């Protein structure tokens, strides 16, 4: 019985990783850069929701929506101010270092504005827990909502990319930026859109994360950000279904490893599995092998 519970908790944690990993994987697929500030956008999103929902008493759905809008704008601003000017830089390291800089900027700004004391986050999900098998199996409302929401987001995103012009443009830019430009696709706008979607989703992931694990500090986004990046690499960076599979596997391995192997080694187990996967399949589970043309 507890195995089922661990599994569900793992899938729920993995769903959060998957939503965050989407931001990493889409940006990498299209702009070929690692946006290390992504984890901190999660934290900003959580604080927006904390202020509007917990402190001002706004409707929870409205508060999450507002937080997604603010993070979308934040993501676009970061892209426009910090990354776009460096897109033509000779070394790809320049933009990587800038991303780390933006990450620290966001963390320290949050420290100034919200202070360093942790705050307790009220869950935005107000569903009573699901009790199965005479109370032996209790699944919290947050867990259920997280899993369902993750699946909905994935489905919508896949549809968006398959069915809309903007989605097709994203695919084209990820294949070949220069050729896409020649075909009349606005590459800059497409990249900005990618950041917007990724950051909006980060806000939702942040709220779900803090609803399940209710302390919020300016450093809240750092560790989930790294885990989600791992999930993206695990599933094959650049691939959207890969982010889903990578995220959920990571969450399940983490929770099961903690339950059955050692509660202290859970992170080590996660990363050991990652190393093995990458040794066997260097591009990740669903990653494509791209042959370099000379």
């Amino acid at each position: 019985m507890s195995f089922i519970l661990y599994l569900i908790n793992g899938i729920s944690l993995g769903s959060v990783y998957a939503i965050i990993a989407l931001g990493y994987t889409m940006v990498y697929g299209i702009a070929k850069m690692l946006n290390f500030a992504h984890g901190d956008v999660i934290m900003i999103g959580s604080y927006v929701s904390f202020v509007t929902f917990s402190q001002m008493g706004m409707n929870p759905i409205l508060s999450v929506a507002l937080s997604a809008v603010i993070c979308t704008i934040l993501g676009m601003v970061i892209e426009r101010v910090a990354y776009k000017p460096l897109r033509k830089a000779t070394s790809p390291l320049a933009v990587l270092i800038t991303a780390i800089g933006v990450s620290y900027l966001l963390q320290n700004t949050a420290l100034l504005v919200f202070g360093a004391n942790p705050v307790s986050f009220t869950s935005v999900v107000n569903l009573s827990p699901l009790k199965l098998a005479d109370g032996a199996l209790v699944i919290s409302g947050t867990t259920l909502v997280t899993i369902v929401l993750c699946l909905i987001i994935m489905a919508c995103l896949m549809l968006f990319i398959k069915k809309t012009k903007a989605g097709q443009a994203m695919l084209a830019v990820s294949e070949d930026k220069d050729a896409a430009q020649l075909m009349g696709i606005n590459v800059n706008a497409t990249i900005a859109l990618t950041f917007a979607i990724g950051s909006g989703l980060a806000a939702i992931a942040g709220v779900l994360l803090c609803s399940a694990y209710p302390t919020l500090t300016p450093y809240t986004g750092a560790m989930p950000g790294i885990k989600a990046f791992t999930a993206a690499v695990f599933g094959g960076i650049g691939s959207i279904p890969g982010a889903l599979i990578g995220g959920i596997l990571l969450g399940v391995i983490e929770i099961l490893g903690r339950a059955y192997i050692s509660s202290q080694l859970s992170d080590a187990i996660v990363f050991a599995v990652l190393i093995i996967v990458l040794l066997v399949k260097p591009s990740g589970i669903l990653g494509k092998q791209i042959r370099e043309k000379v």
Partner: protein
Amino acid sequence: MKKKVLSLMLVASMAAGLLAGCGSTSASSSSASSSDSAEAEAADGEVFKIGGIGPITGAAAIYGSAVRNAEQIAVDEINAAGGINGYQVALQFEDDEHDAEKSVNAYNTLKDWGMQILAGTVTTTPCIAVTDKTAEDGMFQITPSASSTNVIANDNVFQVCFTDPNQGTASAQYIAEKALGSKIGVIYDSSDVYSSGIYAKFKTEAEAQGLEIVSESAFTADSNTDFSVQLQSAKDAGADLLFLPFYYQQAAIVLKQANDMGYEPTFFGVDGMDGILTLENFDTSLAEGVILLTPFAADATDDLTKSFVAKYEELYGETPNQFAADAYDAIYIIKAAIEAAGVTPDMSVADIGTALKEAITTVTYDGLTGTGMQWEATGEVNKDPKGVVIQNGAYVSID
């Protein structure tokens, strides 16, 4: 050109963000104290310079702020009453963000200021780093709240609080004595000396007391946001009392997740649990019935506690926690030791240190956190712990 300007602006704004971050904390911590030191020096050429170090920002900020506030109250009281042996006292407090490296930097800053006695540091891990520095300099150090035995490895360091082993032992004895639970689950932080130190002694003593530990699981600093697995295994093992020897931020998550999964054992915490009621936006009904061992209860009715609590509430707008009480005592213990040793501010740091560490073992001190407190030469304190239970969002003494 445009790109250059933009990236320069970005760099500048990032630098400004970082600088603003550091600037505001150090300014706030030193502004209050520097005016005091100026005042004190004006009153008399010679002052005792006491330094304090602790986290005013960062995850453990609640402890450092409490210590800083209470040390300031004690120093102001002493100065208003004529100082120690006629000498005024100056206090300067530096932030260490609960980080060992920053704590050593703070110590060096205070030494530049002329610190003669250190009333700190607040948390264990940074304190261990700083004790090696004070031992090198022969400085007398008394920590209000760093509770590991590693803290007092050097003979110049003394504690106001219990050592971790004492807390672990006392917790097990208390649980057995009051028959609070028969099947015990433990969750502890294996990456933290404080938590694992208490746990180790608790386990030994629990076995000696005939308590059955049915479930024990650990977490680390990198996995301290999800306790569902640990709680589930405690629930499966049928634990009716859950011992939580770690800090209140994690305890808040444990209480929430236990509530989510419908698990209601008796929760038993140690002094790190202190602070949970003042966590912003925390639903205090979750903490209802939580028992913790702490040497200080703000609702105690003795005159010393009442006057301290009233003063603290008036100045800082919140009820002082145990850390504040420890810090207040620390300053008065320094005063008692100075009076017993008869040292003067013009002596060297090492001479003051040597004299005080002899003198403190002869002192018997009655304070907020215990009566008849006495010190071993090892640095350990002897006093009795008190149990408090959280009822209607406030601490209530059990005894």
